[in-house]
Protein backbone atom coordinates (compact mmCIF):
# COMPACT_ATOMS: atom_id res chain seq x y z
CA UNK A 1 0.00 0.00 0.00
CA UNK A 2 1.23 3.49 -0.82
CA UNK A 3 0.67 6.41 1.49
CA UNK A 4 -2.44 7.21 -0.53
CA UNK A 5 -5.58 6.84 1.45
CA UNK A 6 -7.43 3.59 0.84
CA UNK A 7 -10.86 3.95 -0.73
CA UNK A 8 -12.86 2.16 1.93
CA UNK A 9 -16.55 1.49 2.18
CA UNK A 10 -18.83 -0.65 4.31
CA UNK A 11 -20.12 -2.60 1.32
CA UNK A 12 -19.08 -3.01 -2.32
CA UNK A 13 -21.77 -4.10 -4.75
CA UNK A 14 -20.54 -5.42 -8.10
CA UNK A 15 -23.05 -4.71 -10.86
CA UNK A 16 -25.91 -2.19 -10.88
CA UNK A 17 -28.60 -4.44 -12.27
CA UNK A 18 -31.76 -5.30 -10.39
CA UNK A 19 -30.04 -7.48 -7.80
CA UNK A 20 -27.17 -5.02 -7.30
CA UNK A 21 -29.15 -1.81 -6.93
CA UNK A 22 -31.54 -3.56 -4.56
CA UNK A 23 -28.75 -4.96 -2.41
CA UNK A 24 -27.13 -1.52 -2.38
CA UNK A 25 -30.24 0.37 -1.32
CA UNK A 26 -31.06 -2.10 1.46
CA UNK A 27 -27.53 -1.80 2.81
CA UNK A 28 -27.70 2.01 2.60
CA UNK A 29 -31.00 2.00 4.48
CA UNK A 30 -29.24 0.12 7.23
CA UNK A 31 -26.87 3.07 7.56
CA UNK A 32 -23.98 1.61 5.61
CA UNK A 33 -21.62 3.41 3.27
CA UNK A 34 -22.21 1.62 -0.03
CA UNK A 35 -20.37 1.78 -3.35
CA UNK A 36 -21.80 0.13 -6.45
CA UNK A 37 -19.56 -0.57 -9.44
CA UNK A 38 -21.12 -0.86 -12.90
CA UNK A 39 -19.27 -1.73 -16.10
CA UNK A 40 -21.78 -0.08 -18.45
CA UNK A 41 -21.97 3.61 -19.26
CA UNK A 42 -25.20 3.62 -17.25
CA UNK A 43 -26.88 0.88 -15.22
CA UNK A 44 -28.93 -1.33 -17.54
CA UNK A 45 -26.90 -0.60 -20.66
CA UNK A 46 -25.58 -4.17 -20.65
CA UNK A 47 -28.92 -5.76 -19.83
CA UNK A 48 -31.38 -7.30 -22.22
CA UNK A 49 -34.52 -9.28 -21.47
CA UNK A 50 -38.01 -10.10 -22.81
CA UNK A 51 -39.67 -9.00 -20.74
CA UNK A 52 -41.86 -8.17 -17.81
CA UNK A 53 -41.15 -7.14 -14.23
CA UNK A 54 -43.20 -8.40 -11.32
CA UNK A 55 -44.95 -5.85 -9.15
CA UNK A 56 -44.67 -7.81 -5.90
CA UNK A 57 -40.88 -7.50 -5.88
CA UNK A 58 -40.85 -3.83 -6.88
CA UNK A 59 -43.28 -2.58 -4.24
CA UNK A 60 -41.52 -4.71 -1.66
CA UNK A 61 -38.48 -2.43 -2.02
CA UNK A 62 -40.33 0.85 -2.67
CA UNK A 63 -43.86 0.79 -1.21
CA UNK A 64 -44.53 4.06 -3.09
CA UNK A 65 -43.10 2.52 -6.26
CA UNK A 66 -45.84 3.68 -8.63
CA UNK A 67 -45.89 7.26 -7.37
CA UNK A 68 -42.17 7.50 -8.21
CA UNK A 69 -43.13 7.39 -11.89
CA UNK A 70 -41.09 4.36 -12.94
CA UNK A 71 -40.33 4.02 -16.68
CA UNK A 72 -42.60 1.07 -17.35
CA UNK A 73 -44.28 0.03 -20.55
CA UNK A 74 -47.73 -1.55 -20.64
CA UNK A 75 -49.25 -3.55 -17.79
CA UNK A 76 -49.68 -7.24 -18.54
CA UNK A 77 -53.45 -7.57 -18.81
CA UNK A 78 -53.40 -10.72 -20.92
CA UNK A 79 -50.92 -13.54 -20.63
CA UNK A 80 -50.49 -17.18 -21.57
CA UNK A 81 -49.31 -19.41 -24.38
CA UNK A 82 -49.45 -19.31 -28.12
CA UNK A 83 -48.85 -22.75 -29.60
CA UNK A 84 -47.45 -22.45 -33.10
CA UNK A 85 -47.63 -25.10 -35.77
CA UNK A 86 -45.90 -24.51 -39.07
CA UNK A 87 -48.69 -22.36 -40.41
CA UNK A 88 -51.21 -22.01 -37.60
CA UNK A 89 -51.62 -21.18 -33.95
CA UNK A 90 -53.65 -22.08 -30.87
CA UNK A 91 -53.90 -19.29 -28.33
CA UNK A 92 -54.39 -20.12 -24.67
CA UNK A 93 -54.35 -16.86 -22.77
CA UNK A 94 -56.05 -15.46 -19.75
CA UNK A 95 -57.36 -11.94 -19.21
CA UNK A 96 -59.63 -10.23 -16.69
CA UNK A 97 -60.43 -12.27 -13.59
CA UNK A 98 -57.37 -12.92 -11.48
CA UNK A 99 -55.12 -11.13 -13.98
CA UNK A 100 -57.05 -7.92 -13.44
CA UNK A 101 -55.56 -7.19 -10.02
CA UNK A 102 -54.81 -3.79 -8.56
CA UNK A 103 -52.00 -3.10 -9.08
CA UNK A 104 -51.49 -5.34 -12.09
CA UNK A 105 -49.10 -8.23 -11.31
CA UNK A 106 -46.58 -7.59 -14.05
CA UNK A 107 -45.44 -4.75 -16.28
CA UNK A 108 -43.55 -4.86 -19.53
CA UNK A 109 -40.29 -2.93 -19.24
CA UNK A 110 -37.07 -2.12 -21.06
CA UNK A 111 -34.03 -2.80 -18.96
CA UNK A 112 -31.75 -0.03 -20.23
CA UNK A 113 -34.32 2.48 -19.05
CA UNK A 114 -35.63 0.66 -16.01
CA UNK A 115 -32.34 -0.42 -14.46
CA UNK A 116 -30.97 3.11 -14.82
CA UNK A 117 -34.01 4.40 -12.96
CA UNK A 118 -33.84 1.63 -10.35
CA UNK A 119 -30.20 2.55 -9.66
CA UNK A 120 -31.19 6.22 -9.48
CA UNK A 121 -33.60 5.38 -6.64
CA UNK A 122 -30.73 3.70 -4.77
CA UNK A 123 -28.52 6.76 -5.28
CA UNK A 124 -31.23 8.91 -3.69
CA UNK A 125 -30.76 6.86 -0.53
CA UNK A 126 -27.02 7.46 -0.50
CA UNK A 127 -25.55 4.70 -2.65
CA UNK A 128 -22.40 5.86 -4.46
CA UNK A 129 -22.35 4.63 -8.08
CA UNK A 130 -19.14 4.22 -10.08
CA UNK A 131 -20.09 3.52 -13.72
CA UNK A 132 -17.85 2.55 -16.67
CA UNK A 133 -15.78 0.38 -14.40
CA UNK A 134 -15.10 -3.34 -14.49
CA UNK A 135 -14.28 -5.30 -11.35
CA UNK A 136 -11.53 -7.61 -12.48
CA UNK A 137 -10.57 -9.40 -9.27
CA UNK A 138 -10.81 -9.52 -5.51
CA UNK A 139 -8.30 -8.20 -3.03
CA UNK A 140 -7.53 -10.74 -0.34
CA UNK A 141 -5.74 -10.44 2.97
CA UNK A 142 -4.95 -13.60 4.89
CA UNK A 143 -7.10 -15.50 2.41
CA UNK A 144 -10.13 -13.32 3.08
CA UNK A 145 -11.77 -10.99 0.59
CA UNK A 146 -11.30 -7.41 1.74
CA UNK A 147 -12.09 -5.54 -1.44
CA UNK A 148 -12.05 -5.53 -5.22
CA UNK A 149 -9.64 -4.46 -7.94
CA UNK A 150 -11.20 -2.50 -10.79
CA UNK A 151 -9.83 -1.66 -14.22
CA UNK A 152 -9.32 1.99 -13.28
CA UNK A 153 -5.87 3.33 -12.47
CA UNK A 154 -5.37 2.95 -8.71
CA UNK A 155 -8.59 0.98 -8.93
CA UNK A 156 -8.62 -0.72 -5.54
CA UNK A 157 -11.78 -0.46 -3.44
CA UNK A 158 -11.98 -1.86 0.07
CA UNK A 159 -14.89 -3.15 2.13
CA UNK A 160 -15.37 -6.02 4.55
CA UNK A 161 -18.26 -7.37 2.51
CA UNK A 162 -18.72 -7.61 -1.27
CA UNK A 163 -22.05 -8.45 -2.90
CA UNK A 164 -21.48 -9.93 -6.35
CA UNK A 165 -24.32 -9.26 -8.80
CA UNK A 166 -22.22 -9.59 -11.93
CA UNK A 167 -24.81 -11.28 -14.11
CA UNK A 168 -24.84 -14.50 -16.07
CA UNK A 169 -21.16 -14.36 -17.05
CA UNK A 170 -20.17 -15.07 -13.47
CA UNK A 171 -16.40 -14.85 -13.81
CA UNK A 172 -15.88 -13.42 -10.33
CA UNK A 173 -18.08 -16.07 -8.75
CA UNK A 174 -15.97 -18.70 -10.47
CA UNK A 175 -12.79 -16.94 -9.37
CA UNK A 176 -13.91 -17.33 -5.77
CA UNK A 177 -14.40 -21.04 -6.31
CA UNK A 178 -18.07 -20.75 -5.36
CA UNK A 179 -18.85 -22.83 -8.40
CA UNK A 180 -16.39 -25.34 -9.75
CA UNK A 181 -17.47 -25.28 -13.36
CA UNK A 182 -18.50 -22.80 -15.98
CA UNK A 183 -22.17 -22.74 -16.78
CA UNK A 184 -23.35 -25.62 -18.87
CA UNK A 185 -24.53 -25.63 -22.44
CA UNK A 186 -27.44 -27.89 -21.62
CA UNK A 187 -28.68 -25.64 -18.81
CA UNK A 188 -28.14 -22.24 -20.38
CA UNK A 189 -30.22 -20.65 -23.09
CA UNK A 190 -29.26 -18.02 -25.60
CA UNK A 191 -32.12 -15.61 -26.16
CA UNK A 192 -32.22 -13.15 -29.06
CA UNK A 193 -34.80 -10.45 -29.46
CA UNK A 194 -35.90 -7.70 -31.78
CA UNK A 195 -37.62 -4.61 -30.48
CA UNK A 196 -39.92 -3.38 -33.21
CA UNK A 197 -41.64 -0.01 -33.09
CA UNK A 198 -45.25 0.37 -34.16
CA UNK A 199 -47.88 2.99 -33.37
CA UNK A 200 -49.79 2.17 -30.17
CA UNK A 201 -53.08 2.15 -32.08
CA UNK A 202 -51.74 -0.40 -34.55
CA UNK A 203 -50.61 -2.64 -31.71
CA UNK A 204 -54.04 -2.38 -30.07
CA UNK A 205 -55.87 -3.26 -33.26
CA UNK A 206 -53.63 -6.13 -34.28
CA UNK A 207 -53.53 -7.76 -30.86
CA UNK A 208 -57.15 -7.12 -29.89
CA UNK A 209 -56.31 -4.77 -27.04
CA UNK A 210 -59.04 -2.33 -26.05
CA UNK A 211 -56.59 0.44 -25.24
CA UNK A 212 -52.96 1.40 -24.80
CA UNK A 213 -53.28 0.64 -21.09
CA UNK A 214 -53.64 -3.06 -21.98
CA UNK A 215 -50.76 -5.33 -22.81
CA UNK A 216 -49.61 -8.86 -23.51
CA UNK A 217 -46.95 -11.18 -22.16
CA UNK A 218 -46.95 -14.34 -24.27
CA UNK A 219 -44.84 -17.49 -24.21
CA UNK A 220 -44.70 -18.92 -27.71
CA UNK A 221 -44.25 -22.67 -27.98
CA UNK A 222 -43.78 -24.95 -30.96
CA UNK A 223 -42.62 -24.07 -34.45
CA UNK A 224 -40.80 -21.01 -33.09
CA UNK A 225 -37.92 -23.15 -31.83
CA UNK A 226 -37.82 -25.59 -34.77
CA UNK A 227 -38.22 -28.48 -32.36
CA UNK A 228 -35.22 -27.44 -30.28
CA UNK A 229 -35.66 -27.08 -26.51
CA UNK A 230 -36.65 -23.44 -26.31
CA UNK A 231 -39.42 -20.90 -26.33
CA UNK A 232 -40.41 -17.75 -28.10
CA UNK A 233 -41.99 -14.71 -26.56
CA UNK A 234 -43.95 -11.59 -27.36
CA UNK A 235 -44.38 -8.55 -25.14
CA UNK A 236 -46.16 -5.31 -25.84
CA UNK A 237 -44.41 -2.05 -25.09
CA UNK A 238 -46.19 1.30 -25.24
CA UNK A 239 -45.41 1.70 -28.92
CA UNK A 240 -43.29 -1.33 -29.62
CA UNK A 241 -43.41 -5.10 -29.76
CA UNK A 242 -40.69 -7.22 -28.32
CA UNK A 243 -40.31 -10.60 -30.00
CA UNK A 244 -37.62 -13.11 -29.32
CA UNK A 245 -36.66 -16.71 -29.04
CA UNK A 246 -34.45 -18.55 -26.58
CA UNK A 247 -32.89 -21.95 -27.21
CA UNK A 248 -30.60 -24.14 -25.13
CA UNK A 249 -26.96 -23.58 -26.12
CA UNK A 250 -26.12 -27.23 -26.70
CA UNK A 251 -29.10 -27.75 -28.96
CA UNK A 252 -28.48 -24.54 -30.87
CA UNK A 253 -24.85 -25.38 -31.48
CA UNK A 254 -25.59 -28.98 -32.46
CA UNK A 255 -28.25 -27.85 -34.92
CA UNK A 256 -25.87 -25.37 -36.51
CA UNK A 257 -28.57 -22.73 -36.74
CA UNK A 258 -27.77 -19.04 -36.61
CA UNK A 259 -29.77 -17.49 -33.77
CA UNK A 260 -30.73 -14.42 -35.79
CA UNK A 261 -32.01 -16.62 -38.60
CA UNK A 262 -34.10 -18.60 -36.13
CA UNK A 263 -35.51 -15.30 -34.89
CA UNK A 264 -36.20 -14.05 -38.42
CA UNK A 265 -37.98 -17.32 -39.19
CA UNK A 266 -40.24 -16.68 -36.19
CA UNK A 267 -40.90 -13.13 -37.40
CA UNK A 268 -41.75 -14.51 -40.85
CA UNK A 269 -44.28 -17.00 -39.45
CA UNK A 270 -47.67 -16.49 -41.12
CA UNK A 271 -49.32 -15.91 -37.73
CA UNK A 272 -46.63 -13.45 -36.57
CA UNK A 273 -45.63 -11.49 -39.68
CA UNK A 274 -48.94 -9.57 -39.94
CA UNK A 275 -48.54 -8.39 -36.33
CA UNK A 276 -45.26 -6.63 -37.04
CA UNK A 277 -45.78 -5.61 -40.66
CA UNK A 278 -44.55 -2.07 -41.31
CA UNK A 279 -42.72 -1.98 -37.98
CA UNK A 280 -39.26 -0.53 -37.59
CA UNK A 281 -36.42 -2.45 -35.94
CA UNK A 282 -35.36 -0.38 -32.93
CA UNK A 283 -32.88 -2.73 -31.36
CA UNK A 284 -31.58 -6.25 -31.65
CA UNK A 285 -29.80 -7.97 -28.81
CA UNK A 286 -28.77 -11.25 -27.25
CA UNK A 287 -28.31 -12.49 -23.72
CA UNK A 288 -27.70 -15.76 -21.94
CA UNK A 289 -30.22 -17.08 -19.44
CA UNK A 290 -28.93 -19.33 -16.63
CA UNK A 291 -31.88 -21.69 -16.85
CA UNK A 292 -30.14 -24.36 -14.85
CA UNK A 293 -31.45 -22.69 -11.70
CA UNK A 294 -30.80 -24.98 -8.77
CA UNK A 295 -28.62 -27.36 -10.78
CA UNK A 296 -26.08 -24.65 -11.68
CA UNK A 297 -26.36 -22.54 -8.55
CA UNK A 298 -23.05 -21.60 -6.95
CA UNK A 299 -22.53 -21.58 -3.23
CA UNK A 300 -24.24 -18.31 -2.33
CA UNK A 301 -21.75 -16.95 0.20
CA UNK A 302 -18.27 -17.27 1.56
CA UNK A 303 -16.11 -15.20 3.89
CA UNK A 304 -16.85 -11.57 3.02
CA UNK A 305 -18.88 -12.30 -0.15
CA UNK A 306 -22.47 -12.97 -1.20
CA UNK A 307 -23.75 -13.70 -4.73
CA UNK A 308 -27.19 -12.76 -6.09
CA UNK A 309 -29.18 -12.67 -9.32
CA UNK A 310 -28.20 -14.27 -12.63
CA UNK A 311 -24.68 -14.84 -11.28
CA UNK A 312 -26.32 -17.24 -8.83
CA UNK A 313 -28.51 -18.91 -11.50
CA UNK A 314 -31.64 -17.43 -9.99
CA UNK A 315 -33.97 -18.11 -12.89
CA UNK A 316 -37.19 -20.08 -13.12
CA UNK A 317 -37.39 -20.58 -16.87
CA UNK A 318 -40.80 -22.21 -16.75
CA UNK A 319 -42.42 -19.10 -15.25
CA UNK A 320 -40.21 -16.45 -16.84
CA UNK A 321 -39.07 -15.42 -13.39
CA UNK A 322 -35.63 -14.04 -12.74
CA UNK A 323 -35.93 -10.29 -12.24
CA UNK A 324 -38.09 -10.79 -9.17
CA UNK A 325 -35.69 -13.40 -7.80
CA UNK A 326 -32.80 -10.98 -8.36
CA UNK A 327 -34.61 -8.23 -6.44
CA UNK A 328 -35.64 -10.51 -3.58
CA UNK A 329 -32.14 -11.97 -3.35
CA UNK A 330 -30.55 -8.52 -3.54
CA UNK A 331 -32.73 -7.44 -0.66
CA UNK A 332 -31.73 -10.45 1.42
CA UNK A 333 -28.04 -9.86 0.68
CA UNK A 334 -28.30 -6.17 1.59
CA UNK A 335 -30.04 -6.96 4.86
CA UNK A 336 -27.47 -9.59 5.69
CA UNK A 337 -24.66 -7.08 5.07
CA UNK A 338 -26.30 -4.74 7.60
CA UNK A 339 -26.58 -7.55 10.11
CA UNK A 340 -22.93 -8.50 9.59
CA UNK A 341 -21.84 -4.92 10.26
CA UNK A 342 -23.86 -4.87 13.49
CA UNK A 343 -22.09 -8.03 14.59
CA UNK A 344 -18.76 -6.82 13.22
CA UNK A 345 -18.29 -10.26 11.74
CA UNK A 346 -18.16 -10.99 8.03
CA UNK A 347 -17.34 -14.66 8.11
CA UNK A 348 -19.16 -17.24 6.04
CA UNK A 349 -21.00 -18.34 9.15
CA UNK A 350 -22.52 -14.86 9.61
CA UNK A 351 -23.26 -14.47 5.91
CA UNK A 352 -25.00 -17.84 5.84
CA UNK A 353 -27.98 -15.84 7.12
CA UNK A 354 -28.34 -14.68 3.50
CA UNK A 355 -29.12 -18.18 2.34
CA UNK A 356 -31.40 -18.81 5.32
CA UNK A 357 -33.36 -15.69 4.41
CA UNK A 358 -33.75 -16.93 0.86
CA UNK A 359 -34.84 -20.37 1.99
CA UNK A 360 -37.91 -18.71 3.46
CA UNK A 361 -38.80 -17.00 0.19
CA UNK A 362 -40.11 -18.22 -3.14
CA UNK A 363 -36.58 -17.90 -4.54
CA UNK A 364 -35.01 -21.03 -3.10
CA UNK A 365 -38.32 -22.84 -2.64
CA UNK A 366 -39.16 -22.52 -6.35
CA UNK A 367 -35.63 -23.12 -7.60
CA UNK A 368 -35.53 -26.32 -5.60
CA UNK A 369 -38.95 -27.42 -6.77
CA UNK A 370 -38.07 -26.80 -10.43
CA UNK A 371 -34.54 -28.17 -10.09
CA UNK A 372 -35.07 -30.80 -12.83
CA UNK A 373 -36.98 -28.60 -15.27
CA UNK A 374 -34.19 -27.50 -17.59
CA UNK A 375 -32.91 -31.07 -17.87
CA UNK A 376 -36.45 -32.32 -18.42
CA UNK A 377 -37.15 -29.95 -21.32
CA UNK A 378 -33.75 -30.71 -22.78
CA UNK A 379 -34.63 -34.42 -22.79
CA UNK A 380 -38.23 -33.95 -23.92
CA UNK A 381 -38.14 -31.81 -27.06
CA UNK A 382 -41.58 -33.20 -27.95
CA UNK A 383 -43.04 -30.47 -25.77
CA UNK A 384 -41.69 -27.98 -28.32
CA UNK A 385 -42.74 -30.00 -31.31
CA UNK A 386 -45.17 -32.93 -31.05
CA UNK A 387 -47.66 -31.45 -28.62
CA UNK A 388 -47.99 -27.93 -30.04
CA UNK A 389 -48.55 -29.47 -33.48
CA UNK A 390 -51.04 -31.96 -32.08
CA UNK A 391 -52.91 -29.20 -30.31
CA UNK A 392 -53.21 -27.24 -33.55
CA UNK A 393 -54.40 -30.30 -35.47
CA UNK A 394 -56.79 -31.45 -32.76
CA UNK A 395 -58.56 -28.14 -32.34
CA UNK A 396 -58.42 -27.50 -36.07
CA UNK A 397 -60.16 -30.81 -36.76
CA UNK A 398 -62.61 -30.42 -33.91
CA UNK A 399 -63.90 -27.17 -35.31
CA UNK A 400 -63.97 -28.24 -38.96
CA UNK A 401 -65.26 -31.79 -38.66
CA UNK A 402 -68.74 -30.95 -39.89
CA UNK A 403 -70.43 -33.66 -41.90
CA UNK A 404 -67.96 -36.22 -40.62
CA UNK A 405 -69.32 -38.80 -38.13
CA UNK A 406 -67.93 -37.65 -34.80
CA UNK A 407 -66.62 -41.08 -33.88
CA UNK A 408 -64.41 -40.92 -36.96
CA UNK A 409 -63.45 -37.34 -36.10
CA UNK A 410 -62.24 -38.33 -32.65
CA UNK A 411 -60.40 -41.26 -34.17
CA UNK A 412 -58.64 -38.88 -36.55
CA UNK A 413 -57.75 -36.55 -33.71
CA UNK A 414 -56.29 -39.40 -31.69
CA UNK A 415 -54.38 -40.55 -34.76
CA UNK A 416 -52.85 -37.09 -35.17
CA UNK A 417 -51.32 -37.65 -31.75
CA UNK A 418 -50.34 -41.30 -32.05
CA UNK A 419 -48.81 -40.73 -35.50
CA UNK A 420 -46.38 -38.44 -33.74
CA UNK A 421 -46.00 -40.10 -30.37
CA UNK A 422 -47.29 -43.46 -29.08
CA UNK A 423 -50.14 -42.99 -26.63
CA UNK A 424 -48.35 -44.63 -23.70
CA UNK A 425 -45.31 -42.44 -24.27
CA UNK A 426 -47.55 -39.37 -24.40
CA UNK A 427 -49.16 -40.33 -21.09
CA UNK A 428 -45.67 -40.91 -19.69
CA UNK A 429 -44.57 -37.46 -20.91
CA UNK A 430 -47.46 -35.75 -19.15
CA UNK A 431 -46.82 -37.63 -15.91
CA UNK A 432 -43.10 -36.88 -16.11
CA UNK A 433 -43.84 -33.23 -16.78
CA UNK A 434 -46.16 -33.09 -13.77
CA UNK A 435 -43.54 -34.70 -11.54
CA UNK A 436 -40.92 -32.25 -12.74
CA UNK A 437 -43.15 -29.25 -12.06
CA UNK A 438 -44.01 -30.55 -8.61
CA UNK A 439 -40.39 -31.32 -7.93
CA UNK A 440 -40.98 -34.96 -6.97
Amino acid at each position, binding site marked *: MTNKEKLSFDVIVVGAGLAGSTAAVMAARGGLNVVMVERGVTPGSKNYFGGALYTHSLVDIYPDFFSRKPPLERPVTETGFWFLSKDGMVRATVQGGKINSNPIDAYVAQRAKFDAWWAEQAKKEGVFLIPKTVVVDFIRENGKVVGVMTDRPDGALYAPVVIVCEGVNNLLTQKLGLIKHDFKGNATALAVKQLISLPAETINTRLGLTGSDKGLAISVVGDVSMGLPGLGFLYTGNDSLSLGVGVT*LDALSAAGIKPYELLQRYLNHPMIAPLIAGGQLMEY*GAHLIPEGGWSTMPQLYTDGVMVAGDAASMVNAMHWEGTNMAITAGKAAGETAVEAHKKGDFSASTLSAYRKRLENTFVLKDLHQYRNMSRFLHNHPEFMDVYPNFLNDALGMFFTGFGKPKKQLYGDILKSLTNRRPLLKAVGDIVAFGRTVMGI
Partner: protein
Amino acid sequence: MTTKTIDRSDLPEVYIDDILMSLKYFADEHEAHLKIIDPQVCINCKDKPCLNFCPVGAYRTQDGGTVQIAYQACVECGTCRVMCPPKNVSWKLPRGGYGVSYKFG
Protein backbone atom coordinates in the same frame (compact mmCIF):
# COMPACT_ATOMS: atom_id res chain seq x y z
CA MET B 1 -30.34 -34.91 -26.23
CA THR B 2 -31.90 -36.49 -29.26
CA THR B 3 -30.41 -35.28 -32.49
CA LYS B 4 -32.90 -35.29 -35.25
CA THR B 5 -32.98 -33.85 -38.69
CA ILE B 6 -34.25 -30.32 -38.78
CA ASP B 7 -36.11 -28.92 -41.73
CA ARG B 8 -34.11 -25.84 -42.68
CA SER B 9 -35.93 -25.14 -45.90
CA ASP B 10 -37.74 -22.11 -44.47
CA LEU B 11 -34.78 -20.74 -42.54
CA PRO B 12 -34.30 -17.29 -44.02
CA GLU B 13 -30.92 -15.87 -44.90
CA VAL B 14 -30.26 -12.82 -42.76
CA TYR B 15 -27.65 -10.13 -43.25
CA ILE B 16 -26.72 -9.64 -39.64
CA ASP B 17 -24.72 -6.49 -40.36
CA ASP B 18 -27.95 -4.72 -41.33
CA ILE B 19 -29.54 -5.75 -38.04
CA LEU B 20 -26.52 -4.65 -36.02
CA MET B 21 -27.09 -1.12 -37.31
CA SER B 22 -29.78 -0.92 -34.63
CA LEU B 23 -27.19 -1.35 -31.87
CA LYS B 24 -25.15 1.27 -30.12
CA TYR B 25 -21.53 0.50 -29.27
CA PHE B 26 -18.66 2.32 -27.65
CA ALA B 27 -15.94 0.55 -29.57
CA ASP B 28 -12.60 0.10 -27.87
CA GLU B 29 -10.16 0.79 -30.69
CA HIS B 30 -7.14 -0.08 -28.59
CA GLU B 31 -7.95 -3.35 -26.94
CA ALA B 32 -9.75 -6.43 -28.26
CA HIS B 33 -11.61 -8.12 -25.39
CA LEU B 34 -11.96 -11.31 -27.46
CA LYS B 35 -9.01 -13.13 -28.94
CA ILE B 36 -8.35 -16.44 -30.59
CA ILE B 37 -5.79 -18.13 -28.37
CA ASP B 38 -4.16 -20.33 -30.99
CA PRO B 39 -5.14 -19.81 -34.67
CA GLN B 40 -3.99 -23.31 -35.55
CA VAL B 41 -6.60 -24.79 -33.20
CA CYS B 42 -9.34 -23.09 -35.25
CA ILE B 43 -7.86 -24.36 -38.48
CA ASN B 44 -7.98 -27.87 -37.06
CA CYS B 45 -11.51 -27.43 -35.68
CA LYS B 46 -13.72 -29.22 -38.18
CA ASP B 47 -17.19 -27.99 -37.22
CA LYS B 48 -16.42 -24.37 -36.33
CA PRO B 49 -19.79 -23.97 -34.58
CA CYS B 50 -18.81 -20.38 -33.67
CA LEU B 51 -19.59 -19.39 -37.26
CA ASN B 52 -23.21 -20.22 -36.49
CA PHE B 53 -23.92 -19.81 -32.78
CA CYS B 54 -22.60 -16.29 -32.31
CA PRO B 55 -25.75 -14.12 -32.20
CA VAL B 56 -24.01 -11.20 -33.91
CA GLY B 57 -22.03 -13.23 -36.41
CA ALA B 58 -18.76 -11.92 -35.02
CA TYR B 59 -16.92 -15.12 -35.94
CA ARG B 60 -15.99 -15.30 -39.58
CA THR B 61 -13.71 -17.30 -41.77
CA GLN B 62 -12.40 -16.26 -45.16
CA ASP B 63 -10.92 -19.44 -46.42
CA GLY B 64 -12.58 -22.05 -44.25
CA GLY B 65 -9.43 -22.26 -42.15
CA THR B 66 -8.47 -19.33 -39.96
CA VAL B 67 -11.18 -17.72 -37.87
CA GLN B 68 -11.38 -14.01 -37.13
CA ILE B 69 -13.42 -12.23 -34.49
CA ALA B 70 -15.04 -8.88 -35.18
CA TYR B 71 -14.96 -8.08 -31.48
CA GLN B 72 -16.48 -4.63 -32.08
CA ALA B 73 -19.80 -6.33 -32.89
CA CYS B 74 -19.81 -8.41 -29.71
CA VAL B 75 -22.77 -8.00 -27.33
CA GLU B 76 -20.88 -9.77 -24.53
CA CYS B 77 -23.38 -12.61 -24.22
CA GLY B 78 -20.82 -15.30 -23.41
CA THR B 79 -21.98 -17.98 -25.84
CA CYS B 80 -18.54 -18.44 -27.41
CA ARG B 81 -16.89 -18.63 -24.02
CA VAL B 82 -19.08 -21.60 -23.13
CA MET B 83 -19.54 -23.24 -26.49
CA CYS B 84 -16.19 -23.03 -28.28
CA PRO B 85 -15.40 -26.77 -28.35
CA PRO B 86 -11.62 -26.45 -27.84
CA LYS B 87 -12.09 -23.42 -25.54
CA ASN B 88 -9.84 -21.44 -27.85
CA VAL B 89 -11.33 -18.02 -27.08
CA SER B 90 -9.75 -15.67 -24.59
CA TRP B 91 -12.89 -13.98 -23.29
CA LYS B 92 -12.84 -10.87 -21.17
CA LEU B 93 -15.34 -8.14 -20.52
CA PRO B 94 -14.59 -4.97 -22.48
CA ARG B 95 -12.92 -2.26 -20.44
CA GLY B 96 -15.30 -0.17 -18.36
CA GLY B 97 -17.67 1.93 -20.47
CA TYR B 98 -16.78 0.17 -23.74
CA GLY B 99 -18.69 -2.40 -25.73
CA VAL B 100 -22.39 -2.69 -26.42
CA SER B 101 -24.67 -0.11 -24.85
CA TYR B 102 -28.32 -1.02 -25.11
CA LYS B 103 -30.67 1.90 -25.59
CA PHE B 104 -33.83 0.00 -24.70
CA GLY B 105 -32.83 -3.41 -23.41
